[in-house]
């Protein structure tokens, strides 16, 4: 799935640039469907984080940035972690989970108050 998305990301980027110059690829940031939305953050080093959520969830951009910070704190700073390898760190997963749950709750409350 991730590799399919990576290809999509690059294709979308090349369709947006008239000349094929080798600048930073600006690919898919958001996909909206009937049942869900997907939002993606691309870091300066090319790593992509993406989240799927309810179509009404408009808080994903901030959440993605928070997850990027959690990634640098819990994954990159782990002395045993090798870059580009799959991440299997419960400390990272727990932290992400707590942020996601908090953001979801806040998002739910905001939608109910509308």
């Amino acid at each position, binding site marked *: *799935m991730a590799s*399919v*998305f990576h*290809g*999509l990301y690059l*294709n*979308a*980027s*090349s*369709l*947006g*640039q*008239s000349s094929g110059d080798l600048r930073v690829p*600006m*690919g*898919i*940031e*958001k*996909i*909206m*469907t*009937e*049942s*869900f939305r*997907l939002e993606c953050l691309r870091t300066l080093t090319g790593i992509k984080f993406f989240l*799927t959520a309810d179509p009404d969830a408009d808080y994903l951009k901030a959440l993605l940035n928070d997850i990027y910070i959690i990634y640098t704190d819990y994954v990159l700073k782990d002395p045993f972690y090798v870059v580009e390898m799959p991440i299997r760190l419960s400390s990272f997963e727990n932290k992400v989970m707590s942020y996601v749950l908090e953001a979801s709750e806040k998002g739910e409350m905001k939608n109910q108050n509308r």
Partner: protein
Amino acid sequence: RRFDMAPRKVDTLYIFARDGSCLYLRKFAGEMKQDAKEVEIEKKNMFGLLFTLKTFVNSITPRNLDEQEKEPIRYFQTAQYQLHYMETASGLRFAASTPPNTRNMQVALGRIYRLYVDYVLRNPSYRVGTVINLAGFNQRVDAYVREIAG
């Protein structure tokens, strides 16, 4: 439900048949000097992207899809453009590119589909599945795009 009057600037309109052939490609923004080869590449790339996007969306959707069911795509967005999408029951695909953060264009694409039905499908000289080259349709599409551009 009323269609809100927020401006929507369509840059390019694509119509693809189910088999991937591009029946219509019309640009509305500025003078884009593209040679015929570049246009053909754009058509192929756009259809390829939409096809792969559909497959991706169908597999990642949290909804439980039935056998033949598909997850309808509304749009996707990059930092440079937004691509609105609508697929009809017969497999005809309408796609419109706009600047990013444009409001929902499902109703607008539906109206353009209506123009297709009235001025292409019902034109006796038009053979279904072929490239659309009809002045009447072009005029109506131009007028509608101008109308919603605000």
